[in-house]
């Protein structure tokens, strides 16, 4: 009978299967097929390697039974101690310690030193696990010291002598870092310490014992039992640790743990409250809000809950909870209005204003918050100025409260928001609004004994008014401008505000008022050249503000400073030029140098005190000198201007300037031009020559003779004649 021959399989494909890690397929192909062009040695080698690798893979995956089966199959093909030592290891893992001891007894006689040592090591451990705790000293001595100590340590541990075990483990110093980590983990387990460091690379058993993670644990019966027992313990431990953290206010936890483990309702809600606070502290406001909403019916029983809810809502954009917030705060006020301070009621009402203005006003009526009603309701509908309104306002403004201050700021903010709608107003609405603005400004102007602490909020309101009023053309509503100007002037004097520190809107308003024309720009946004400029603009609020008006704030400030200095000088104030210090940072801007010259000129014109001293004082305030390039450039131009009004001013400044230049810096063209200007001033105005003039003339001739500046040649020739006269 013809026996059916085996099908063939290519060697190339077989190697390809091996390369791609399909060891099981390699084994089955060799069993089923005849492999083409393969030698017996080659086939056996690839089969052995496949079994070994397959066994290793099964072992790594925790399936030690299959790993042992693979090694057994391998040993049927080729018996070698190299593979038997692997089987010994697997048997130990499978806790087949009796079999391990039998195999180990044979392998410890191996002539291969490496195999012998490994076998002794495993054999000793297997013996111990098999219940035989007596160690064979002669065998042990054949192992490296480190392994000896390890076995001794384990022997002590299995006899529940943790102290000795730790002592031996301390002396066991494996070279490999991974083993060092394993040993550290083992010591942590014995000491009962909290796990620390990276636990990802340590033995799965140690990881299980330390943190309850079971990944990579070998799948034996005992390991399954241990795993189940430990998992329960770890779940309990994690829960307790979480609860401890919450009680110590260190970390927010899953609210389910609180709900499941705290039976007492009162305690439960206190813990929920603390948990929400911790979430807010960690800036997890959305989670905090979710939890608050879930327990709001219980949380309202805590007097602290309103503030917590308000904090959460201030930090979230959630709209869905708005209605719940209104209901919650309404009920809260019902429950606690007698327990909390009136300003706390105001605080809640202020917050509610953002959500439902009429509801907030209703509640203000319920709890008699008159000031609140005045600012939010009465003031906003007052179209006509009345003495009763004024009396009410004066009464409120006399006594400072933070709520009132906030409410004034709210009024300012609403005015600014209304500004955007003005262009859409019909005539009637516009008229009403102007009347309303007029009534409000008049109220401010006529207010009496306003508490000083209101300075910031009043200024804020005036700023908003200045901004809004400039929306209307001056010629259409000049009265509005006039009363606002009066009101601002009144408060600037009343509070003693430094004009330079006034808000931009007010400074611009002053300019509009002076020009009798609003300088506010109509288009809201500047035209941006490119995307980068646009981004800059978006990030810079000041840029936006500055674009509102057609003027330069810094120049306005400089002018205000100059006027203040002159006023101080006229009133003989001590240190009259002190305000100049505010310009120190703008030293490099040309207008500052011009301002300094103008101020010197004005001081000389006023003929107050010693002019030299005054000039020195002004210059020293800004550490400016006449030698500075910025002054050199503009001096002659300014001198010409001053000479037209008052020749004396021009001469005094020039004399001082010329005299202040150090000798080593006098041979420059700009200096010579100063000298030329001085000589020409004298000559053109037919002034009587004096010794100073002669000195200056001589100096001019001397320098020009030496330096021979082309542009000065004509003057030189002309002045030579003058010198001989």
């Amino acid at each position: 009978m013809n026996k059916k021959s085996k099908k063939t399989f290519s060697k190339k494909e077989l190697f390809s299967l091996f390369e791609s890690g399909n060891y099981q397929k390699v084994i089955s192909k060799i069993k089923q097929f005849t492999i083409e062009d393969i030698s017996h040695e080659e086939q056996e080698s690839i089969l052995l390697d496949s079994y070994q690798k397959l066994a290793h893979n099964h072992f790594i995956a925790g399936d030690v039974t299959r790993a042992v089966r693979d090694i057994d199959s391998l040993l049927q093909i080729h018996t070698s101690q190299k593979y038997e030592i692997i089987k010994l290891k697997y048997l130990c893992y499978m806790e087949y310690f009796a079999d391990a001891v039998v195999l180990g007894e044979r392998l410890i006689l191996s002539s291969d030193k490496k195999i012998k040592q490994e076998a002794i090591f495993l054999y000793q451990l297997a013996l111990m696990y098999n219940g035989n705790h007596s160690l064979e000293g002669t065998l042990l001595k054949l192992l490296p010291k480190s392994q000896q100590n390890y076995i001794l340590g384990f022997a002590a541990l299995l006899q529940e002598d943790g102290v000795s075990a730790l002592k031996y483990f301390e002396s066991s110093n494996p070279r490999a870092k991974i083993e060092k980590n394993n040993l550290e983990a083992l010591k942590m387990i014995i000491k009962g310490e909290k796990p620390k460091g990276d636990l990802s690379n340590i033995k799965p058993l140690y990881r299980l014992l330390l943190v309850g993670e079971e990944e990579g644990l070998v799948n034996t019966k005992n390991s399954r039992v241990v795993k189940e027992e430990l998992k329960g313990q770890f779940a309990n431990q994690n829960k307790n640790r979480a609860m401890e953290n919450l009680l110590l206010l260190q970390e927010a936890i899953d609210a389910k743990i609180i709900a499941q483990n705290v039976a007492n309702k009162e305690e439960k809600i206190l813990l929920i409250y603390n948990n929400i606070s911790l979430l807010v502290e960690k800036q997890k406001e959305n989670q905090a809000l979710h939890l608050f909403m879930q327990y709001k019916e219980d949380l309202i029983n805590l007097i602290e809950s309103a503030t917590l809810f308000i904090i959460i809502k201030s930090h979230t954009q959630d709209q869905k909870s708005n209605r719940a917030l209104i209901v919650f705060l309404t009920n809260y006020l019902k429950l606690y209005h007698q327990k909390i301070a009136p300003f706390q009621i105001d605080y809640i009402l202020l917050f509610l204003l953002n959500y439902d203005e009429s509801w907030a006003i209703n509640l203000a009526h319920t709890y008699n918050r008159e000031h609140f009603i005045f600012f939010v309701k009465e003031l906003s509908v007052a179209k006509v100025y009345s003495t009763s309104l004024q009396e009410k306002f004066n009464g409120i403004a006399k006594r400072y409260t933070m709520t009132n201050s906030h409410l004034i700021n709210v009024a300012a903010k609403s005015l600014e928001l209304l500004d955007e709608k003005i262009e859409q107003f019909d005539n009637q609405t516009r008229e009403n609004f102007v009347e309303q603005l007029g009534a409000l400004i008049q109220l401010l102007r006529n207010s009496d004994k306003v508490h000083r602490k209101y300075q910031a909020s009043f200024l804020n309101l005036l700023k908003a008014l200045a901004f809004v009023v400039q929306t209307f053309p001056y010629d259409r509503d000049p009265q509005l401008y006039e009363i606002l100007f009066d009101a601002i002037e009144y408060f600037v004097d009343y509070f003693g505000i430094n004009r330079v520190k006034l808000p931009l809107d007010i400074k611009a308003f002053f300019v509009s008022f002076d020009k009798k024309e609003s300088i506010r720009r109509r288009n809201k946004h500047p035209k941006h050249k490119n995307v980068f400029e646009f981004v800059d603009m978006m990030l810079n609020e000041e840029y936006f503000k500055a674009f509102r008006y057609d003027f330069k704030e810094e120049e306005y400030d400089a002018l205000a400073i100059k006027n203040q200095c002159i006023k101080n000088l006229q009133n003989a104030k001590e240190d009259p030029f002190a305000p100049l210090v505010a310009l120190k940072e703008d030293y490099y801007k040309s207008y500052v140098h011009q301002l300094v010259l103008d101020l010197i000129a004005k001081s000389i014109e006023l003929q107050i005190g010693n002019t030299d001293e005054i000039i020195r004082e002004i210059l020293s305030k800004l550490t400016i000198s006449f030698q500075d390039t910025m002054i050199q450039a503009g001096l002659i131009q300014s001198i010409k201007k001053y000479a037209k009004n008052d020749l004396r001013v021009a001469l005094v400044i020039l004399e001082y300037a010329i005299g202040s230049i150090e000798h080593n810096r006098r041979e420059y063209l700009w200096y010579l031009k100063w000298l030329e200007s001085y000589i020409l001033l004298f000559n053109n105005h037919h002034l009587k020559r004096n010794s100073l003039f002669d000195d200056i003339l001589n100096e001019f001739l001397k320098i020009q003779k030496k330096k021979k500046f082309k542009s000065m040649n004509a003057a030189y020739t002309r002045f030579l004649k003058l010198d001989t006269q």
Partner: protein
Amino acid sequence: MIKKSPYEMLGLKDNFTFEDIKKAYRQKIRENPPEQNPQAFSEISDAYDILTNEEYFFKDAPKELYALAVDIKVDESPKRETSRYLKNIFEVPFQI
């Protein structure tokens, strides 16, 4: 930072009115005079200020988070018998 609730600091429980806050404050101050217990004195004063002085309230309360006292004892986890578990599972200590 989470602070203790000002109401709890002053020992204010369910039945009280706004007027009772002052009484509670005086009582607590008597119990904790500054020379004996400066820390407690300062905390009590802060708590009182938050509840009665609008400047303090507006400055601090809207930003502060408060904790409420909860006195719960957490069960201790049963201690694992390490050697028992190590007896049951074989682990090859050094790599083979």
